[in-house]
């Protein structure tokens, strides 16, 4: 996973020191604080959700993301705080609906791609004209 960005620019006096000590998300691979405890079983919340405040679980309807391993009925873990980048699987707001797509940011523009040849790409003039609801970090695929 890429670098995860937490709340930014917190500088007013007192808050400055606090900001980075608060439960900020960390890059994957960093040892989880949960590993300090040996008295419990694996807690999926601790491992799959880095920022509980901005993380939501959503359910997929449709097959347009099949090639990314995301199927109809799967649950996705979506973090609203993440910066969407080229290649991110994002939940975007399209025509008032939450829609899951692969985000492509290239020199020629911004494209929302399906991961299924049946569905056409959606070109967007600029990232600023797109409402990204959140960035998917995990898929809970039904096997």
């Amino acid at each position, binding site marked *: 996973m890429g670098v995860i960005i937490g*709340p*930014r*620019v*917190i*500088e*007013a*006096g*007192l*808050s400055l*020191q*606090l*900001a980075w*000590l*608060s*439960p900020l998300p960390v890059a994957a691979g960093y040892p989880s604080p949960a590993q300090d405890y040996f008295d419990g079983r694996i807690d999926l919340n601790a491992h799959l959700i880095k*920022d*509980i*405040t*901005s993380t*939501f*679980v*959503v*359910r*997929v*309807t*449709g*097959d*347009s*993301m099949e090639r990314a391993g*995301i199927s*109809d009925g799967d*649950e*996705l873990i979506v973090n*609203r*705080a993440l910066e969407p980048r080229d290649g991110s699987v994002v*939940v975007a*707001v*399209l025509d*008032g*609906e*939450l*829609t*899951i797509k692969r985000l492509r940011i290239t020199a020629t523009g911004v494209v929302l791609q*399906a991961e299924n040849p049946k*569905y056409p790409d959606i070109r967007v003039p600029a990232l600023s004209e797109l*409402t990204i*609801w959140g960035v998917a970090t995990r898929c809970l695929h039904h096997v």
Partner: protein
Amino acid sequence: MSKPATMRQMPEIAHVDVNCFYASAERVFDPSLEGKPLIVLSNNDGCAVARSPEAKALGIQTGEPWFKLAPRAKEWGLIAKSSNYELYGDISARVMELLGRYSAWLEVYSIDEAFLGVKGTPERLLELGRTIKAAAARNVGVPVCVGIARTKTLAKLANKWAKHNPAFGGVCRWDSVPPRQQEALMARLSVIEIWGVATRITKRLNAMGIHSILDLQRADPVRIRERFSVVMMRTVLELQGTPCIPMEEARIGRDQLIFSRSFSTPITSTRDLRQVLSVYAQMASARLAKHELQAKLLTAFAGTSHFNARQTAFPSVCVPLPMPTADPVILTKAAHALLPSIVEGTRYARAGIMVTDLRPSGNQKPLEHFENPHEERRIGTLLEDVTKRYGRGSIGLGHAGIRGGPDWTMKRGMRSPRYTTHWDELPRVKAA
């Protein structure tokens, strides 16, 4: 004339609240509601309790009965939602957790507003306000406004100003506004617009020749105390810039009840915090019973002190209650759901509980047996064990207990899914 640097760095108070909270919470998971007139209805779909700006623009008033609005809803494009307190409670908890990152001094004031202690240069404070606004929009998905001032009363007023005047971009620091503009605003607004001034008092103030906020600000605090109360005098002093409204410990509002307190000595153990939460839950229970109310949702929270900037934590948990209740055992158990998030050794300086989704207890008198708190202890444990084994709703107190009790009769036909608290009601994302 510039003030010395130390003067400009006095601690200030930020008041943050979510715009049209219930309507905004609904919009997080249903962007199609964006830009449309939306109202949220009271329990039993009785009347409008929250309105989106578009609904306000239609002239719909808070408290307007739904049966009067329903015939015209289609023509207006008005969308009504039954209240979804589990959703609002969870979104509220997320907002409060987020705010906790920006200040170690956080007073959760209601389901949708909080006071934060902040410090810094005027520019930094404004920047902080904008950062908070952006973070709430991005991390949680709700719009907030921020008012920053030397006192709580002025911070509330600044917030109101920020909401109504788009020029502020949702963030207003009182002292950053030229005094002439402050005065113009205060002269324009009636005293009733001030936090804590009721209609009854307004009439008496008017009789004294005090009509606008500016009139009140210029009033003699001593005279106000003589004619009214020390509470009213505090309001005057606060308007003049002298902070004197302390942290409040208990409040009952239209749709929520809060118990929260700072500790003289920080609490560092789960055991002690368990006791504190138990006491609050029992206080909440007593207060609910006194007002003949029952709650359906409980939020428990704790926070570290701003004196200990090296260790901050603001755990918060939102617990849907198995039935509308004022029962001390059930409320206590629910409050204890916070305990797993408590880190042993962390110095918690305050804790609290909030109960929401309140409704009249009606004539559902509990069996006398259940009214005795000593008897209830064991029953509470038994209930919990049975619930753990056989699931929620398998056992309950009296005839109010099983499967929602009074909820049977509750109309909630237009409720949106409980997106964040029920696995079978998760938000849907389209892959098409």
